[in-house]
């Protein structure tokens, strides 16, 4: 199916463990984003990528690592999970940067709910 898919949907882990959240999109969109969503904070950008092998930090990158070896995949790794990283994580994609065309919106996946115990 066309779209953007995230896996797993739910993940429970322990502090100190490494966790990787997967994101796959079928549109060949250039731009991909990782957000976290916490009560009272809205969406906060963790990392984004303009193309394969090009990534950059967002607002809250500490404790996270990303890679993008292929256009369609953008995994997010928590190298050593902490309780403060308990959150819902959303991956998003967009065909081009900028917003000159209002139809060029962000497309979000359904999210991964991560609990760090």
């Amino acid at each position, binding site marked *: 199916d066309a779209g953007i898919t995230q896996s797993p949907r739910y993940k429970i882990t322990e502090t100190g463990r490494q966790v990787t959240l997967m994101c796959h999109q079928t549109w060949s969109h250039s731009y991909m984003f990782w957000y976290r969503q916490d009560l*009272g*904070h*809205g969406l906060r950008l963790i990392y984004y990528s303009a193309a394969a092998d090009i990534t950059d930090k967002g607002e809250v990158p500490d404790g996270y690592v990303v890679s993008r070896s292929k256009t369609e995949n953008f995994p997010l790794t928590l190298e050593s999970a902490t309780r403060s990283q308990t959150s819902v994580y959303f991956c998003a994609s967009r065909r081009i940067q900028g*917003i000159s065309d209002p139809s060029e919106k962000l497309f*979000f996946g359904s999210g991964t709910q991560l609990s760090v115990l």
Partner: protein
Amino acid sequence: QKEVEQDPGPLSVPEGAIVSLNCTYSNSAFQYFMWYRQYSRKGPELLMYTYSSGNKEDGRFTAQVDKSSKYISLFIRDSQPSDSATYLCAMSESGSNYQLIWGAGTKLIIKP
């Protein structure tokens, strides 16, 4: 103080009512204003987009921007139970998605 403030709700109204959702912001350089709708256990989806000041209408939805007051609104006419969701405002100076600043979202409940 957050750059974008949004009442988390929940806001509960009867079916058919007019709903008003609002965000205030502090950065006068914001020019691009968006409303996203997020259903439970789903990602947000773009509902309305406005550049600079003014109104924009799309069916039952109207987005309004008042830059002098640093205030944006989303109006929903003839509200339906299917409108029950969390509504997030987002805004940026340049329109680039990596510079989007998001409100925390308002949970809306439409009672049949």
